[in-house]
């Protein structure tokens, strides 16, 4: 019988081999296919089964995970969802993640290489990774003021600390509620998302960093910077400022928004031209400097560069090779000049920071699961856009815009203890924004010397008059500045 037992053991060995080959196929070769199947809950459970780290403003979470009784163990909640949606984005089982939820996923989910020790423990012990915390650069007061100011409009606010590039406020309007998109109910998520897509105001667009609009007269800051940097002009240089400027090579003319000449004898100083937002003087100046000088200056402020804060911002553009009339229009922020609110805040901040433009950033600190600080962002210089002297001249000109020019809404700002704060600003109105609607702009810098905040406000569909920048966007900028200086 020994022989038949041996033969039978060969059969049993073959059965064993079949089992081994089969489990190898399942666990190694088909593993990814099985994991990718839509009805495989494990991938979701894994993601939602561990506590995702919070996103913080100061010490307060603007996104955090709450334990639930459901199969998906943790629910993402946003205590002030709409106000911070532009920063946090959402974290959806249907549509994936956006905003910091997406870019900082490694940290929040705990899989970042920064968590070396924790990961080592996971590897050895098979522990569930724990999420780290992301602290933003946002100033809650400034964010609050911007959010309140934008209520009922379509627009964007972005504020930067000029000396570092920290983003102090980033608000979009209209916004969306990330709580609904991050819920565990696919049907309500889909319904809500569809309604957002159908909304003509496009609440899913992250306006402060993504929406590209012609910057209008706020771009005159770039033209003025180019003029001062050329060495040929000072704030007191006298420019022609007629009521109408004949666009070269064409029969068309460019008019001042007031319809009148900018000064006596059709003459105006550079500082007054900026204060009154004189189109004809700046159009003339644009052609005098040339498109290349304007482009170079705009690129020194950050145009034509894609920034990630780590959120990916749209690239602001100065047109490639404009002819003379196009250059004149570009010099006053029309034609094909396009900028995000963040870009115009950067221009303002660079002027206020002695001509040095800092790279904007949104993440201040990364903390490990044990809350130990693992990484702190260090400010990075993007480029020197102007000499300190030229920058100081331009700040002085911007103060004139507030004190006796078009930005009257920012006059008389004081610190909480009653001290007057000198503020520099520039208003603007782009006749054709996205979808052809006019955009009211204001950029501002406060305090003018040693500034703590540079803010850009863009309100779509905001009237079509130079006054509208001041009237519509001005109060919002004022509220943000007052909040930030408190």
């Amino acid at each position, binding site marked *: 019988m020994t022989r038949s037992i041996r033969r039978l053991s060969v059969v049993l060995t073959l059965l064993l081999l*079949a089992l081994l080959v089969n*489990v190898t196929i399942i666990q190694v070769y088909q593993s990814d296919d099985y994991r990718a199947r839509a009805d495989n809950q494990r991938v979701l459970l894994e993601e939602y089964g561990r506590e995702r780290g919070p996103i913080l403003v100061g010490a307060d979470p603007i996104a955090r995970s709450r334990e639930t009784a459901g199969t998906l163990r943790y629910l993402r909640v946003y205590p002030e969802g709409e106000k911070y949606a532009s920063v946090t984005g959402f974290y959806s089982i249907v549509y994936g993640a956006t905003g910091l939820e997406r870019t900082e996923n490694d940290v929040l989910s705990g899989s970042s290489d920064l968590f070396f020790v924790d990961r080592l423990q996971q590897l050895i*012990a098979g522990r569930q990774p724990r999420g780290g915390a992301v602290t933003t650069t946002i100033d809650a007061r400034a964010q609050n003021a911007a959010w309140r100011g934008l209520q009922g409009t379509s627009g964007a606010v972005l504020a930067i600390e000029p000396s570092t590039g920290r983003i102090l406020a980033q608000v979009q309007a209209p916004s969306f509620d990330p709580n609904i998109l991050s819920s565990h109910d696919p049907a309500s998520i889909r319904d809500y998302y569809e309604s957002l897509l159908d909304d003509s105001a496009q609440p899913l667009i992250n306006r402060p960093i993504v929406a590209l609009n012609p910057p209008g007269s706020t771009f005159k800051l770039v033209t003025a910077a180019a003029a001062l940097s050329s060495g040929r002009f000072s704030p007191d240089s006298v420019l022609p400022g007629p009521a109408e400027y004949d666009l070269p090579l064409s029969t068309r003319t460019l008019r001042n928004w007031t319809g009148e000449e900018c000064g006596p004898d059709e003459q105006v100083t550079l500082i007054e031209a900026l204060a009154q937002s004189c189109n004809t003087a700046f159009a003339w100046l644009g052609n005098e400097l040339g498109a290349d000088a304007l482009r170079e200056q705009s690129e020194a402020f950050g145009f034509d560069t894609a920034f990630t804060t780590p959120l990916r911002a749209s690239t602001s553009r100065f047109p490639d090779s404009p002819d003379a009339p196009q250059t004149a229009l570009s010099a006053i922020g029309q034609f094909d000049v396009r900028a995000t609110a963040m870009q115009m805040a950067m221009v303002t901040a660079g002027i206020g920071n002695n001509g040095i433009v800092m790279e904007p950033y949104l993440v201040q600190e990364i903390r490990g699961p044990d809350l130990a600080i693992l990484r702190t962002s260090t400010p990075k210089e993007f480029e020197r856009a102007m000499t300190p002297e030229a920058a100081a001249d331009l700040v002085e000109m911007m103060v004139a815009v507030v004190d006796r020019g078009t930005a009257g809404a920012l006059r008389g700002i004081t610190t909480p203890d009653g001290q007057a704060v000198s503020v520099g600003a520039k208003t603007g109105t782009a006749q054709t924004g996205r979808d052809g609607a006019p955009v009211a702009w204001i950029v501002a810098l406060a305090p003018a010397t040693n500034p703590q905040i540079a803010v850009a406000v863009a309100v779509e569909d905001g009237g079509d008059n130079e006054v509208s920048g001041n009237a519509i966007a001005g109060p919002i900028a004022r509220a943000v500045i007052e909040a930030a200086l408190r």
Partner: protein
Amino acid sequence: MKRPTRRNFELLLLVMAWGLGVLGTVQVGWATGEGLHPRLWITAAVVGVLALIAHLIVRWRVPYADPLLLPLATLLTILGLVMIYRLDVAAAQRAERVGAVPPTPDVYNQLTWYAVGVTLFVLVLLALRDHRILQRYTYTAGMVGIILLILPLAPVIGTTVNGATLWVRVGGLTFQPAELAKILLTIFFAGYLVVTRDSLALVRTRVLGIEFPRPRDLGPILVAWLVSLAVLVFERDLGTSLLFFGLFVSMLYIATQRRSWFVLAGALFAIGAVFAYLAFGHVRVRVQVWLDPFAYADTGGFQIVQSLYGLANGGLLGTGLGGGYPSLVPFANTDFVVAALGEELGLTGLIAILLLYAVLVERGLRTAVAVRDPFGQLLAAGLSITLAIQVFVIVGGVTRLIPLTGLTTPFLSYGGSSLVANWIIIALLLVISHRARRPLEGQTDDASMPTQVVSR
């Protein structure tokens, strides 16, 4: 020269198995965030004492027995306990989340059954000095085996769970008589085949180059086939049915060394399979689910799909004990314990477990080859083959190699009858192994007798 008993080696392996169990339990507590279980050391002590008792009784009663059998069975039992504890933790955490009453942990029941298993293990070793005694009870064993097999059909005490009538309930206790029946029937087959194998091996006809037995010798295999079909029809238990038929045919082949029995058995199996497929909805569903489980992912295929997802989630190295979601698979601690282990220990762990079984079966078959009496040979081979078939049928089912049939995974699955029965099998194998390996001249059963020098 004294022949080595290898008992110290066995003890070392047992200590390692125990240590693995403690490490696994600590790991589960750590990974699930539960921390060290307050009763960890008491439980570990109980397991250690049970393993030690088993070892000491082996040292006393069957000192020359194979040194791997006991540690392998102990390690598998301990792995099962760790996994059952891990699934208890998952169930408790789930209950805590939804605010429900935490379910009673299963691990203490299983531990109790392990103790019962070891008790019967000890009793077998104490009562059975020589396995050949069992040959005297060939027909008694056959009778009792058949009765046990049909016991779940009896009124009042028979119980149907999940469509299969496999259980018997007496008082508050339920057990699966088929588990004990498989041992008794193996004894019966061995005793019966020892007597009849010569006539069964006689050849009469030769068809297509294969020698076939005489028609009048076909009786036994037909009876076995009909009984298997009866189990399938009346108890709706595909697994047990398959196990008995496979066991009988394998033993018949070993006894007669005639491959023609396999051809016949194959034909009978095919007829039975076609009949079952056509006649029974539940068999048809099993096959359809096997062919395309994802088409039935919400109904009959749910278990197998979840099992595959679990295995895939484990991948090469596994999620680590406590790191996966084995509780997503229904019946994770009984039929699908292999899927749970495959998820958390990965392919590496699963292969290791399959190799533990392979070594266990191999040691059993080696015992069968080594023992000198034909009854012992058949019995040892038969007992090893039941283990092998059972592992293949359930692991193959869970991993979708073959259609899923409900069978317990020896030693690992939660469930008393199976654990106790398998421990009795180990005891029987040890008795046979002792006789096979002890010094040749030892005609007396007294192993403590002065060692004789044997020239070999």
